């Protein structure tokens, strides 16, 4: 499990560089407020590729998935609760 075939690492690396090119290209197209959404979707995809294949999460037991997920779950609590405050302050 530790030693994946070199092809998997090469394909992951190539996909990451292709996604980098896509991010840059997308930034120069006017998509209005969707520009940030597209950029973040590509970044999340890149992060997922790195974690699943380079960090071997895909080949790990479910206990590790819980540990990995916990970090991001608590991050999302921090971002969502704090931003729900900032975004609703103007309401009256």
């Amino acid at each position, binding site marked *: 499990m530790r030693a994946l075939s070199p092809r998997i690492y090469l394909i992951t690396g190539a996909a990451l560089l292709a996604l980098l090119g896509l991010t840059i290209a997308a930034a120069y197209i006017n998509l209005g407020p969707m*520009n940030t959404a597209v950029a973040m979707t590509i970044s999340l995809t890149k992060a997922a590729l790195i974690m699943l294949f380079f960090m071997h999460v895909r080949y790990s037991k479910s206990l590790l998935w819980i540990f990995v997920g916990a*970090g991001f779950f608590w991050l999302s609590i921090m971002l969502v609760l704090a*931003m729900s405050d900032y975004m609703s302050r103007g309401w009256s």
Partner: protein
Amino acid sequence: MPSLALPVEHQFDDAGQQREAATLGMWVFLSTEILFFGGMFLAYTAYRYTYPQAFAEASRQTLIAFGAVNTAVLLISSTVMAFAVRAASKNRRALLGLLLLGTAGLGALFLIIKGFEYAHEIKEHLLPGSRFYTNASDPKHVELFFSIYWVMTGVHALHVTIGVVLIVFFAFRAWFTNAFLNRDTPVELLGLYWHFVDIVWVFLFPLIYMIDRHS
């Protein structure tokens, strides 16, 4: 050759369980790192939401070519690191040292490029403080963007620096000691750290350099 087998500490049933525990421990550390960087990403998000125009103006003053090249450098270094971890698990220690040195070299290249970028920004008065100057319409909040920029990229660069030092140290241990003879867990954990630092940059790159680039 029982002396060459991976030693299992008495609290573990077998080598597999020991290795799993080490990986879990590393991910607990990385979770604290996620939340550590998360606080700064939250500051960025809250102020970008509050001052969208100033943040867009500020972002267009950053050097996107430097950022793009540096992203590629880190992504390639992560790929090389993945091969280093593979070499460690195959017990190929000469190759391991070489691949680790390659990873560290790319990490150092990242820091050099970042250094030239910082030097340019200091010359352009984009370092917050008494010498900060911009002709943007809302200079106070352009300065706020650059405060967040310097702290986030600075803390990230500190992580890269720590990574490069550790990786060079590991490369020499691979070449000149038996530290990684039939024992790849330390290299695997070092790889997790390096990939994490790469992931942070993957999010920093679009958030810093690419706000409203099209206009």
